[in-house]
């Protein structure tokens, strides 16, 4: 008997349409998944831009995301993925591994095909002239690929001509794992997630972030900002700290207020004038002695 004929005799179960509808439902649900929005915590006169920008999943990253721009103006985001039990799967036309042309619908799967992480991308840049932070959705064109050596790369071709020289370009790798974030509400962290609060010096919550209780962050023993900048009311930069600088004690005098970074915490004291704190990275120490860095954009406006 010919293969085609034999295959035609395989009995198809009656309930197959239910499975197809489930597949469609999952795809529709994906499309409707909430995205991060600007969060305005009006009561505390604080503004958080960008929401939480963390990387957490069952896939462990042996390095923090690396972002850099090459000489041709291409931005690359490389994520080192090293997990013995996980594979990285990308959605593409054929449904398998390989290049893709839409960044909005790719996901990382664990070895069982279960989605463990969905990304969306934005880039933001800091205008040092006026202290403003611009957040822009990335164009939906790019390439995601696995290099076969355990690394996954996202490659984006974009136009940076409109960004003046000297402006710092930051990439935010954002996961929508934390949950729904609506305007005017704080991050709704699920039970088991780790919440971190930063005091504004007057007992008010200046910044709260939440990390999912997922590896590798389930094992966090301490966390501190590793990169932040402070601006006065006029948007003039008052201090810029690179990684490592926050381990000790630093004071930034804003005139009517003082910002103190001490032992990994940031305190803002005083009520005169306004200021803006921009945090671009946190460094977390894990139980096994290793460290991971969490990149993102956190912007806190403080003062009366």
């Amino acid at each position, binding site marked *: *008997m*010919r*293969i*085609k*004929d*034999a*295959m*035609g*005799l*395989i*009995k*198809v*179960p009656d*309930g*197959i*349409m239910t*499975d*197809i*509808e*489930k*597949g*469609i439902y*999952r*795809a*529709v649900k*994906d499309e409707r998944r909430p995205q991060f929005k600007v969060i305005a915590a009006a009561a505390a006169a604080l503004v958080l831009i960008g929401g939480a920008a963390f990387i957490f999943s069952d896939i462990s990253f042996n390095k923090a995301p690396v972002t850099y721009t090459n000489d041709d103006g291409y931005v690359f985001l490389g994520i080192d993925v090293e997990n013995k039990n996980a*594979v990285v*799967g990308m*959605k*593409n*036309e*054929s*449904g*398998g591994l390989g290049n893709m*042309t*839409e960044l909005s*619908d790719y996901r990382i799967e664990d*070895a*069982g*095909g279960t989605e463990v992480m969905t990304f969306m991308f934005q880039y933001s840049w800091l205008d040092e002239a006026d202290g403003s932070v611009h957040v822009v959705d990335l164009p939906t064109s790019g390439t995601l690929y696995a290099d076969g050596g355990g690394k996954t790369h996202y490659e984006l071709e974009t136009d940076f001509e409109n960004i003046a020289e000297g402006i710092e370009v930051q990439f935010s790798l954002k996961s929508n794992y934390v949950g729904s974030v609506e305007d005017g509400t704080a991050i709704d962290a699920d039970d088991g997630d780790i919440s971190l609060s930063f005091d504004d010096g007057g007992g008010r919550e200046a910044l709260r972030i939440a990390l999912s209780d997922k590896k590798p962050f389930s094992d966090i023993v301490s966390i501190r900002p590793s990169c932040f900048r402070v601006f006065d009311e006029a948007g003039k930069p008052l201090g810029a700290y690179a990684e490592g600088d926050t381990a000790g004690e630093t004071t930034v005098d804003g005139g009517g207020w003082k910002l103190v970074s001490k032992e990994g915490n940031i305190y803002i004291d005083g009520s005169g004038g306004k200021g803006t704190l921009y945090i671009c990275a946190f460094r977390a120490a894990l139980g096994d002695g290793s460290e991971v860095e969490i990149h993102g954009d956190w912007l806190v406006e403080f003062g009366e």
Partner: protein
Amino acid sequence: MKNDTIKRAAEGGGKAFAELFSEVQSELYRVAFIYLKNRDDALDAVQETAYRCFKNISKLKNREYFRTWAVRTLINCCLNMIRSGKRIVPLDDAPVISEGASCENSALASVTLGILMDKLDEREKSVLLMKHLYGMSFSEISKELKLPLGTVKTLLYRATDRLKKENFL
């Protein structure tokens, strides 16, 4: 396959997509069954294929190739499931052959399917199905399976030879 239905599905119409997918559902299930050898996993693969196809149908450049595209997606799903170590249950006594088939056909089909499922490895199955069932060229198969052209030809020769020895080609 109606072009209009494909167009509506590509525009995000879940109902149109379901209608479209229903035309290939049996074929997809049967191919999945050949790879995964049991009903539940085959249904999972069909569901995953529906998910992937619905998400990506707007990117399908040539709508007339929907069927082939869906099958290629399905085969990738099946191969992923196998690679990821998903449990594969061997063909059991469950009635996998349609009741309408004659006893003779039923027996022949069981033997043929048994050989196809158990005697050929995944790569051989893929090459064989893509070539004989879907009329894909060697270069298309090579690209799809990410295998050198020579390897594709060797695999087809080996699979065909094995089936010929069993008098099934």
